[in-house]
C-alpha cells in the first residue's frame, strides 16, 4: 500500500478521534476526497518540475503517533530563541506540550488549534477564516483533511503584541517514520502587530515528513512579522504551505532561513485584497550535502497602489540543489503596483545546482515591476584583496559569502533573531569570522 492509499484509508480512523459534529467536518471530508482525486504532486506539474517527493514519500510513515515523547526544556532550549520573553506553542510528535508552552488568553488568544476547532466560543472565527485561503492542491487538501492540531493565534484589533510568539514542532523518533500535518490559523485584527517565529525540529535520525498549512489574515493596517527557521536534520523533510491574505494598508513580512533538512519546499502565497498593501518575502538559503530547498512564491496583486518585495539569497555547496520559482501576478485593476523580485545565488561546488525562474504575469499597464536572478561564483579579485590582508582562503570565502547574504537581515526587527541567524550563517559557512556578528 503506498502512502496515498494509506492516508486515504486512515481517514476513517482519524474521524473517530475528532469532533465530527462541526462545520469543519464537511471541510475535512471534501478535502480527503480532493486529495484522493489529486494525490501528491509529481514532476510533471510545472510547479514541481525541479522537486521530486518520491524519495521522501517512499517511507512507511505513521500517520498517527501512538505515544507522545517527553522532552526536557534544557535538552531543547537551543532550538528556542531563549534569550527573549515570548509566548510559546510547542508540539512534540504532533501533540501539544503544555509543559514546554506558554500560551495566553489575556486579551489575545495564543493557543491551540484543537481547542479552537472544538470550543463554541471560537466558532465564529473558525467559520470566518478556517480553510478560506488554503488552496485545493493535493498537499494542502491532505493537511486540511487531517487538520486537528497546530497554533491558533487571534489578535483582536488595536493590539501591539510585545512578546514574539514561537511555534515549534519537535519530533522525537518514537515512530520509525512519522508524518505530521500541523495546521495553523493566525488572524490579526485592524492596527494590530504580531511577531511569530516558526520552527520544525527533528531530534532523531528516523525520517520525518511535515506537511504544514498556515493561514494568515492581516486585517486593515495590521503588521505581521513572520520568521521561519529551517535548520533541520538530514532525516527531516518539510513542505510548508503558507497563505497570507492582506487587507488594505497592512504590512506582512516573511523571512525564511533555510539551512538544513533533506527536502524543504516553501509554498508561500500572498493575496493582496486592498490598497496600499506591502508584502515582503526574504530568504537566505545555505545548504550542502544532498540537501534540497525549493522556494515557490506567489504574490497576487489584485488592487491598486500596492507593493511587493522579494529578496532571496542562496549559497549551495556539495551536491545540494536549490529552486526558486517566484510568480508575480498583477491584475488589470492593480494599477501603480510596485513589484520587485531578486534571487541571487552562489554555487560553491561544481556539483551543486540552482534552478531559478521568475514568472511575471502583468495585466495592468501602469506598474513598476522588476526581477533579476544571478548565479555566480565568488569574485576572485575580492578573494585576492582579502587574502592580501592576511585573511586565509577559507575565512575569506566565508566573509564574502556572509557579506553576500547578510543584507537580507536588515529587515529583521528582533535583534535576538538577527544575532542567532548570523551565528548560524557563520556556522554553516564553517568560519569563525573574527568579529561579533
Amino acid at each position: 500500500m503506498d502512502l496515498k492509499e494509506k492516508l486515504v484509508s486512515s481517514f476513517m480512523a482519524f474521524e473517530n478521534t475528532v469532533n465530527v459534529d462541526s462545520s469543519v467536518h464537511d471541510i475535512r471530508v471534501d478535502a480527503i476526497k480532493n486529495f484522493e482525486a489529486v494525490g501528491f504532486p509529481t514532476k510533471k506539474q510545472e510547479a514541481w518540475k525541479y522537486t521530486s517527493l518520491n524519495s521522501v514519500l517512499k517511507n512507511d510513515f505513521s500517520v498517527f503517533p501512538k505515544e507522545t515523547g517527553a522532552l526536557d526544556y534544557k535538552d531543547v532550549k537551543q532550538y528556542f530563541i531563549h534569550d527573549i520573553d515570548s509566548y510559546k506553542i510547542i508540539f512534540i510528535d504532533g501533540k501539544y506540550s503544555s509543559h514546554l508552552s506558554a500560551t495566553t488568553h489575556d486579551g489575545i488568544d495564543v493557543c491551540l488549534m484543537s481547542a479552537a476547532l472544538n470550543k463554541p466560543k471560537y466558532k465564529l472565527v473558525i467559520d470566518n477564516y478556517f480553510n478560506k485561503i488554503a488552496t485545493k492542491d493535493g498537499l494542502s487538501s491532505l493537511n486540511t483533511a487531517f487538520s486537528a492540531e497546530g497554533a491558533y493565534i487571534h489578535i483582536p484589533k488595536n493590539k501591539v503584541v510585545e512578546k514574539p510568539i514561537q511555534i515549534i514542532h519537535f519530533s522525537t523518533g518514537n515512530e520509525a517514520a512519522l508524518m505530521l500535518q500541523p495546521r495553523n490559523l493566525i488572524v490579526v485584527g485592524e492596527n494590530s502587530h504580531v511577531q511569530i517565529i516558526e520552527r520544525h525540529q527533528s531530534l532523531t535520525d528516523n525520517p520525518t515528513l511535515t506537511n504544514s498549512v498556515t493561514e494568515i489574515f492581516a486585517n486593515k493596517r495590521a503588521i505581521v512579522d513572520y520568521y521561519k527557521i529551517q535548520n533541520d536534520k538530514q532525516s527531516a523533510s518539510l513542505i510548508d504551505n503558507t497563505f497570507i491574505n492582506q487587507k488594505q494598508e497592512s504590512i506582512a513580512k516573511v523571512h525564511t532561513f533555510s539551512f538544513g533538512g533533506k527536502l524543504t519546499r516553501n509554498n508561500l502565497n500572498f493575496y493582496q485584497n486592498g490598497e496600499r498593501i506591502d508584502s515582503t518575502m526574504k530568504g537566505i538559503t545555505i545548504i550542502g550535502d544532498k540537501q534540497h530547498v525549493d522556494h515557490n512564491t506567489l504574490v497576487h496583486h489584485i488592487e491598486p497602489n500596492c507593493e511587493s518585495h522579494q529578496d532571496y539569497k542562496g549559497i549551495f555547496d556539495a551536491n545540494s540543489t536549490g529552486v526558486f520559482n517566484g510568480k508575480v501576478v498583477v491584475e488589470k485593476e492593480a494599477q501603480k503596483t510596485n513589484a520587485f523580485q531578486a534571487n541571487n545565488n552562489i554555487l560553491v561546488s561544481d556539483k551543486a545546482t540552482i534552478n531559478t525562474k521568475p514568472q511575471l504575469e502583468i495585466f495592468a499597464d501602469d506598474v513598476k515591476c522588476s526581477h533579476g536572478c544571478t548565479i555566480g561564483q565568488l569574485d576572485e579579485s575580492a578573494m585576492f584583496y582579502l587574502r592580501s590582508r592576511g585573511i586565509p582562503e577559507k575565512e575569506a570565502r566565508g566573509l564574502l559569502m556572509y557579506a553576500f547574504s547578510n543584507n537580507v537581515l536588515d529587515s529583521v526587527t528582533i535583534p535576538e533573531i538577527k544575532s542567532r541567524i548570523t551565528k548560524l550563517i557563520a556556522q554553516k559557512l564553517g568560519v569563525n569570522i573574527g568579529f561579533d556578528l
Partner: protein
Amino acid sequence: MLKINNLHASVEDKAILKGINLEVKPGEVHAIMGPNGSGKSTLASVIAGKEEYEVEEGEIILNGEDIEELSAEERAHKGVFLSFQYPVEIPGVTVTNFMKTAINETRKAKGLEDMPANEMLKLIREKSELLEIDRKFLSRSLNEGFSGGEKKRNEIFQMAMLEPKLAILDETDSGLDIDALRIVANGVNKLKSKDNATIVITHYQRLLDYIVPDYVHVLYNGRIVKSGTKELAHELEAKGYDWIKEEIGA
C-alpha cells in the same frame, strides 16, 4: 629585505615580466616608474601573491626566504602589504570588522591570541587620526561607495593598522586631489622606519615630491631598463619616457 632575481612572469601565457632584478634594503624607498603596460602593476601583484600570474623563472626573496610558493595570506603574515590601485568593494563588511579580522588572522598565524578589544579600539583610533579619517567612515561597508580619495586613504589606513615590513603602493596617487595626496603621503612618511621598506609604483612624478625615494627605477616592457636617484624622476617628468626608449634602442 626584498631581493628579486631574474623574475619572469606571465598571465594566460602572455609574458609580462621578462627578467626583473631588484634589491630593496630596510629603511629604503624605491620608486618604480614606467609607461602604461610596462608591467608595474603585474610586478606588485606577483610580489603580493596573486594566483593568476604564473612565475616562470627567477625568485622573490623576502628576508632570506623564497616566498614564491607562498599564498597571498602567508606573504601578508610575513609582512608584505599591497595598496591596491583599484581597491575592491565588499558590501556587508565594515571597515572596522574587516581590519579586526585581518589583524586577528595575522596574529593567529603567528601563534598569538586575538588582540584585546580595547587595544584594537585604541589602535583604530590612533591610526584613523593619522589618516584624518572620520569615525563614521569606519562603520561603512568596505570601499562601497567610497570616492577615489577615500579608497586610497583607506588603503593607507589598513597599511598603518597592519604595520607591514614591505609596503607596495600601486598607483596610490591616482584619483587623489592635492589635499588627499598630502594626507596619504604624510601617512606613508610617518609609517617609515629603518626596519621597513616601501616600493612606490607610479606613473607620475607628483607623488615623489611628497614621498621622496632613495632610488628610482624605470620599468619598460617587463624589464628594469634604468635605475637612478630621485633626479631621474624629475628627468622623466620633464622629458617623458620616449628618450628612455631611444636610449635602450627599443
